[in-house]
């Protein structure tokens, strides 16, 4: 049962009023258009014409719009049902550049569709791979999804790009005013203004950019020259394939899939106050939508589509995660794909405004990732599982050029902090599973052991298993109540043999000893009874046991007693 988080103004199933929905959708579109730089980069890398770039940008908007709607659908097994917008996936950039340079845009389109088909197939059995994606793995992927955007966010925030390496004071001013407005509204505003924090911040950023000379007459000229409406030129369509490019595209789609798992995990978490673990069936539906978006992207003539972490961050910040917003986004993007003049408003977005918006959104993603990681107990093994991929991933951005010499075929992994960290954490998770016993024993000696013995054993095991802290605490409490009920009172005639077993959904404690079973009253004993001494006073311990555990079963045979405590995990 999903519990609605109190910080959401519009939760996933809510229906915002039409105008509100359109404005919230528009806010997301501003953020999505930042990714339109990727098709431009690809076309420029092969010396393509501005018309080719314009075509690919339009088709990217169309694919992003369709992808966003597919993700929100949750019909016939397609889509996770969340507001999880789609855009040109950065994971595809490296493979896309390779394809475009080897065989032109048609090869890029063809290979993108093939990669999408692979993801569609993957979506059919990804739910069986739950073991690969415990919370510390998905949490790290979510955090890295945010961290990987930092270089883009900061470069833009400082008003820089590939041809401009200087930060000017007006750019900084616009950046801080934009970010300050967004953060200020999110933190201090009351009522529904928080919903539009990014839209208001961006509008102020745009307006401030005009007198400060960041938005110039040249930009306005671009807007004026763009045709009001246009349909894509049929000459640009075409598809070709090259077996040699299969591997880089498979790697790209795998990285993109890992990112999508992280994004959908975040969507699940932000929409359920009682979130415990990734719902892999739901992720499978999201991956299917992602794959279909990539297939569609290739068919209409653009690069691979992937879920947008920044937009999920935006939905957290504004407290609006309604799937209805996804339909508004989809509609606006499809509309813009055929209206170049309007689309130009987004294309000329000043870099500092772009950077401020990314910083705002990414903050939420990074924190959401660490929250997912910390929802579980971590021992040394799990610390390395998170720490090593985090460090290696960060090295991609911190030490540019470090992985320049890796084989081209592997470059999609080593060209992005997210890809490297995600691939490593999945591999390390498999390696670190070696040697973790799912069943462990503890022998409790009445008169010798105490609660500390149970705490030390259970906390160590909980961390090795990556269990939820609160469930382990309840198991400790119940086991100690059992020990106190049968140990000092003499109900157990000797040692108590405790066996604890764990899988992701269950934690079971089975205690065996020779002697009498404990009393398990269904109501708390009366106060007078609690103040008595000796075995008759153990009713409270038995009662507490039944409250801590989800179920308690006791059976005796030939003087041997077995107490089974079950905890849902």
């Amino acid at each position, binding site marked *: 049962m999903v519990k609605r988080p109190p910080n959401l103004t519009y939760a996933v199933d809510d229906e915002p009023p039409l105008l509100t929905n359109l404005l919230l959708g528009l806010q997301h579109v501003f953020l999505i258009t930042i990714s339109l730089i990727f098709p431009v980069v690809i076309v420029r890398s092969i010396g393509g014409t501005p018309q080719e770039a314009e075509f690919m940008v339009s088709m990217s908007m169309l694919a992003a719009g369709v992808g966003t709607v597919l993700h929100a659908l949750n019909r016939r097994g397609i889509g996770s049902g969340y507001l999880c917008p789609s855009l040109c996936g950065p994971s595809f950039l490296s493979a896309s550049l390779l394809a475009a340079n080897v065989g032109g845009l048609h090869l890029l389109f063809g290979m993108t569709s093939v990669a999408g088909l692979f993801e569609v197939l993957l979506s059919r059995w990804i739910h069986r791979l739950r073991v690969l994606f415990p919370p510390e793995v998905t949490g790290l992927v979510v955090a890295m999804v945010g961290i990987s955007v930092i270089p883009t966010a900061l470069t833009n925030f400082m008003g820089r790009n590939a041809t401009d390496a200087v930060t000017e004071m007006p750019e900084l001013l616009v950046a801080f005013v934009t970010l300050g407005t967004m953060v200020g509204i999110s933190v201090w505003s009351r009522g529904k203004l928080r919903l539009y924090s990014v839209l208001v911040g961006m509008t102020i950023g745009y307006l401030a950019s005009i007198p400060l000379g960041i938005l110039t007459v040249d930009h306005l000229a671009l807007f004026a020259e763009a045709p009001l409406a246009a349909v894509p030129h049929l000459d640009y369509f075409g598809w070709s394939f090259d077996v040699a490019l299969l591997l880089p595209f498979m790697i790209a789609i795998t990285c993109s899939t890992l990112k999508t798992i992280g994004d959908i995990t975040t969507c699940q978490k932000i929409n359920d106050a009682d979130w415990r673990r990734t719902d892999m069936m739901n992720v499978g539906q999201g991956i299917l939508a992602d794959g279909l978006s990539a297939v569609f992207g290739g068919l209409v003539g653009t690069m691979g589509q992937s879920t947008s972490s920044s937009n999920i961050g935006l939905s957290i910040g504004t407290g609006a995660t309604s799937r209805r917003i996804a339909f508004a986004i989809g509609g606006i993007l499809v509309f813009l794909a055929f209206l170049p003049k309007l689309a130009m408003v987004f294309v000329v977005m000043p870099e500092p405004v772009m950077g401020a918006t990314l910083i705002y959104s990414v903050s939420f993603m990074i924190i959401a990732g660490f929250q997912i990681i910390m929802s579980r107990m971590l021992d040394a093994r799990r610390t390395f599982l998170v720490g090593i991929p985090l460090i290696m991933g960060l090295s991609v951005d911190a030490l540019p050029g470090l992985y320049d010499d890796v084989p081209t075929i592997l470059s999609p992994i080593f060209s992005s902090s997210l890809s490297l960290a995600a691939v490593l954490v999945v591999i390390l998770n498999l390696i670190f599973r070696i040697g973790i016993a799912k069943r462990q024993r503890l022998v409790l000696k009445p008169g010798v052991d*105490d*609660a500390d013995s149970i*705490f030390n054993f259970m906390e160590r095991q909980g961390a090795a298993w990556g269990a939820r802290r609160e469930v382990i*605490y309840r198991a400790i409490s119940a086991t100690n109540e059992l020990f*106190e009920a049968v140990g000092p009172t003499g109900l157990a005639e000797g040692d108590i043999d405790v066996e604890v077993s764990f899988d992701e959904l269950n934690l079971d404690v089975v205690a065996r000893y020779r002697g009498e079973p404990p009393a398990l009253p269904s109501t708390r004993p009366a106060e007078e009874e609690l103040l008595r001494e000796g075995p008759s006073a153990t009713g409270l*311990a038995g*009662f*507490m046991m039944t409250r801590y555990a989800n179920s308690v079963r006791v059976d005796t045979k030939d003087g041997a007693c077995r107490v089974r405590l079950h905890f849902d995990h």
Partner: protein
Amino acid sequence: MKIDNKSSGDVEIILPAGRLDAPSSEELQERMVGLIDGGCRKIVANFSGVEYISSSGLRVMLASLKRLRKAGGDLKLARLHPYVRETFEIAGFTQLFEIYDREEEAVGEFGRQDRPSQ
């Protein structure tokens, strides 16, 4: 288990620290009995250092509360960790004890009760 205590006027403040299970509850019981037998009637138990309490610990607290109230005194609790508070709730003890977020509030409540109503 480490158990400190201090005074604030005529209120005795007891500060147990660690895990309050069956063996450590006996220590706490001895300390409480000593305070009550020594004439102390107003006690605040500051639980900020207690990370776990078992049913044995709960029974010691209940026994102390009963003895104090019978003698015209009271036992108030302050600064319970979330898990410890949950244990009190599960046992239905939050209806028996007055529980405060801060030690000063619990001590101040004794002073307020002492003042004659206007």
